[in-house]
């Protein structure tokens, strides 16, 4: 059997996941195999470095701004800021924004390039794969901290989207980030299976 949830470009043709059918244990194996195939492809394309090194590269490649005085923000900048900040303390305002972004993503399956602070889209562009990668890593961080399955659920959907676009991605930083996003997801799923099955 084949894992089919990343077969088509999910940014163009969003997957709604309604009433997905039960295929038994072989479904889990096919999912793991599909994700592993993506990891193998990435390993062929880039030289791996550690996750902290990857984040440093990401920070350097962007002019990170919080843009507190503006009524809108560039999604990528904000996601990089949240992902790379060394202060791990939970921040109420930041949490609310992540929750709203997660809700928006779950309903629309899109992440727009700019929003206002009420999270109303300020741009028509939702095709920047980096935003999906960054949000996947933020969901991963949130799941690690609070074990809330809501974040693992979105993380799986975000990684489906990313995997569906993998052949179009060549930026080494993006590929490194994807490598870690998928590895984190596989690790969480492995732990959950160990606990539940």
């Amino acid at each position, binding site marked *: 059997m084949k894992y089919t*949830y990343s077969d088509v470009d999910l940014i163009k043709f969003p997957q*709604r*996941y*309604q*009433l*997905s059918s*039960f*295929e*038994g*244990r072989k*479904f*889990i194996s096919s*999912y793991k195999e599909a994700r592993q195939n993506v990891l193998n492809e990435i390993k062929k394309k880039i030289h791996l470095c550690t996750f902290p090194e990857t984040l440093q590269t990401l920070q350097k490649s962007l002019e990170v701004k919080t843009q507190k005085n503006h009524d809108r923000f560039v999604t990528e900048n904000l996601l990089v800021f949240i992902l790379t900040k060394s202060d791990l303390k939970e921040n109420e305002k930041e949490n609310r924004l992540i929750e709203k972004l997660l*809700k928006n993503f*779950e*309903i629309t399956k899109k992440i727009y390039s700019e929003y206002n602070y009420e999270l109303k889209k300020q741009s028509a562009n939702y095709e920047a794969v980096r935003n999906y990668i960054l949000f996947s890593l933020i969901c991963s961080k949130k799941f690690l901290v609070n074990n*809330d*399955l*809501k974040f*693992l*659920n*979105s993380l*799986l*959907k975000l990684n*489906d989207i990313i995997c569906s676009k993998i052949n179009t991605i060549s930026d080494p930083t993006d590929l490194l980030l994807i490598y870690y996003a998928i590895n984190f997801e596989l690790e969480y*799923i492995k732990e*959950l*299976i160990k606990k*539940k*099955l």
Partner: protein
Amino acid sequence: MSFGIILTPDIRSKAYIQKILQNNIKLDIILFMNDRRIEKIYSDDIVKVSKRYGFDIAKPVMNTLLENNLKFKEFSFVDINNPVLTEYIKSISVDYLIFTGGGILKHDILSSGSKFIHLHPGIVPSYRGSTCFYYSILNQNNAGVTAYIMDEKLDTGDIIYQKKFQKPTHRYLDEIFDPYIRSETLIELFKTKKLPFNDLIKQNTSVGETYYIIHPVLKHISILSCLTDG
């Protein structure tokens, strides 16, 4: 006090109406939104399991209504916010209507004079939103149902009754476990609570968790965890 139900041509309505009849519960009015969709054919195994849980998944709602000589008003659409339905509800003045379908009720129907009861497969406020029983099984090895009076938001209405269930030992969570836990809660609600429902519990809408449609990987782990322990 009058009590009715709004049925749709789906599994949940099959379970609700069959269990209402089995328990001799009298309804003052039955509304049936019926778009005459083609009935799904079910395997022998799923039919057998559904009967074990107190309803026949293969029996169309229409057949149950006709075989039991029940009076009902049929609508040719399946849309709870359809103005035709709203106008009809206004004209019949029924106090409570059980709504078997999903989705959010808009202002017009909520202002029709009736109160709408929904049976949500999650213990609120911890489990609001979609496919909650899968998450609850993963988190707590059980699932629950909340009966509440619907308002304009998602799963935030005043609570009438809540009931918890052990996770099932079969694989048909969408098809059987979900309608089973909802219909069982409905029957228990009829048996334990008296009309009018005066002891409603107000929800604190600022607390709790909202879940979204479960990803197939998590869904599989949830179902497999039922089979593993079973």
